[in-house]
């Protein structure tokens, strides 16, 4: 390496001296209009709730207490573990996991199929995949709702074809929510995997095949381990937004069973009006997402070493 000492020469003498000024606008904007608000939420989560919405500036752990302990309808029963909110979180995690798996099961073969096309067809397939995403997420979700409703076109077609007798019950089910999440975030799965496959050297597969490996063994023992970073990136890109998703559960799940997103929304916009509790739920959701991301970043940097 002719550049030698000092590592990569990405330091540019041209802009390095003014980097602070270049970074300052983004720091200020994001710091003031996002980091600060999130900190405010953190503070709110430790304040006392005001009757009919708002906060009173008296520190308390009531919001977190409410999250974890059930003190009965009147608040004076001996505390028991409150499963309601924990189960909302667990349900949301399961829901997001389900959507991630669904995306992976369909997204991986699709990405693989696209990556193995010739260049021109590749672009066409990629375009076909991304065109629906130019249409607003809301419209897509509502279209999905329209399609799968009890007396909707899907059921009508299936009944007309004689495949089913009674309409499939899809709307207001978990499956519908997962379908909606899948529909919302599929490209986030396909594109990173596709990018990883583009860099994958298929001679590895051929070498394995030369060494008597059957095709599916090649897939699981050679290809997937090598492109794993792409797959993990895709999973995170689907999982994280699914966790806090609001539209799909609200429109397709009938809003009867809460997900984290609707639980938080309800504290600020709906009937509940318990700001500290909404703030606490936000902070718990945020820390879950951060744990996933930090874990990912750690794994990523380990891999680089």
């Amino acid at each position, binding site marked *: 390496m002719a550049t030698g000492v000092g590592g990569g020469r990405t330091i540019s003498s041209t802009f390095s001296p003014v980097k602070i000024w270049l970074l300052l606008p983004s720091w200020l904007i994001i710091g003031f209009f996002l980091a600060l608000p999130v900190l405010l939420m953190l503070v709110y989560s430790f304040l006392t709730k005001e*009757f*009919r*919405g*708002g906060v009173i500036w008296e520190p308390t752990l009531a919001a977190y207490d409410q999250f974890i302990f059930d003190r009965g*309808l*009147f*608040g004076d029963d001996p505390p028991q573990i409150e499963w*309601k*909110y924990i189960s*909302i979180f667990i349900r949301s995690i399961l829901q997001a996991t389900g959507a991630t798996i669904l995306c992976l099961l369909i997204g991986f073969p699709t990405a693989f199929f696209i990556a193995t096309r010739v260049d021109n067809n590749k672009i066409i397939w990629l375009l076909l995949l991304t065109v629906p995403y130019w249409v607003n997420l809301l419209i897509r979700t509502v279209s999905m709702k329209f399609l799968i*409703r*009890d*007396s909707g076109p899907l059921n009508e077609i299936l009944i007309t074809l004689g495949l089913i007798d009674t309409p499939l019950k899809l*709307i*207001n089910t978990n499956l519908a929510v997962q379908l909606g999440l899948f529909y919302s975030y599929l490209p986030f799965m396909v594109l990173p995997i596709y990018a990883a496959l583009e860099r994958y050297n298929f001679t590895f597969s051929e070498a394995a095949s030369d060494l008597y490996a059957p095709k599916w063994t090649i897939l699981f023992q050679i290809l997937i381990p090598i492109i794993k970073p792409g797959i993990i990136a895709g999973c995170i890109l689907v999982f994280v937004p699914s966790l806090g998703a609001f539209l799909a559960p609200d429109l397709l799940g*009938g*809003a*009867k*069973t*809460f997900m984290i997103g609707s*639980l938080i929304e*309800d504290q*600020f*916009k*709906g*009937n*509940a*009006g*318990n700001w500290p509790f909404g703030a606490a739920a936000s902070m718990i959701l945020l820390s879950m997402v951060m744990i996933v991301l930090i874990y990912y970043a750690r794994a990523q940097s380990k891999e680089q070493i």
Partner: protein
Amino acid sequence: MKFKTIVVSAIFALSINVANAGEKLSLYHWFEYIPQELLDKFESETGIDVTMDTYDSNESLLAALKAGKLGSYDLAVPGDYMVEILAGEGMLDTIGDGELKNKSNIESQWLDASFDRGRKHSIPYQWGSTSFSVNRDVYKGNINTTDIIFNPPDELKGKINVLDSQGEVMALASLHLGIPQCSNDRDQLKALDSLLQSAKTHWASFGSDIAKDVLVSGDVAVGMIWNGFSSKAREEGANIEYSYPDQGYVVWMDNVVLLKDAPNRKNALIFMDFILEPENAAAVTNYAQYNAGVKGVTKFLEPALAVMPENNPRDGAGAGVFVAVCEQSTQEVYDQMWTRLRS
């Protein structure tokens, strides 16, 4: 450079948007509750530009105002009990004597309302009832009982939509149990809680804005709904019947209120006067199919409204009751129940 031109023109356009300081009125209203034609008429008569946002429950109106929207709107249209709550929260402005020239148009029975003594903050908008409608193709039995919602027959289980509105659901449930609203009796509250918990297992969805659509599309067979909304659903092709149960039903009155810190207070008063004109009040009634609280609307009303079943309680139906405003301790238990119910 083209790019620069676009940016500059965008900034220009935006500044026009901001700087366009003509006469304005900012309305916070229920969804699907005022005909666009009426707003157009107001605009052409007064030259005041109306912008309108919508909400779907009294509680979400309160939440939005609490969360920083107070000061952006001139007028809102809360239901009876919410007028009382908003006034208690200090979110309403007072209408001075003589500020409304059409105040005398208010029907005498609504001139002094329990939720707004002397009509200091509000004028009547529409009144009606909240109960439920049943799809008669699905269920042919007796629908004159709140059991349909809270203890449904097998045919209707899992096919029920309930309004996402705490006040009305609590009131109807209290009627079902025959207990007073806002009771602070622990046993009664516990009974109320367990009723809701058991009923919830039979409910398909919560939603106010979807209340009509789910009945029309057939997604559900029973829907808790407002009477006028139900008749619109019927007109759109749903074979449904609105129930006036034996146990009683909820009556309500929506009112136009003057919000505190209204940016266009003067225009708000002009709009209130406009709504109090019999012809205009009738236009709302013709559209939403409830009842106006204004004198002299009859000659402007469509005749069909008078005879429509949703507007005429059957003989022997229970009494209609307003949603009560509970004291804080009871309300907090209600909130707790509601949260358990919704999550």
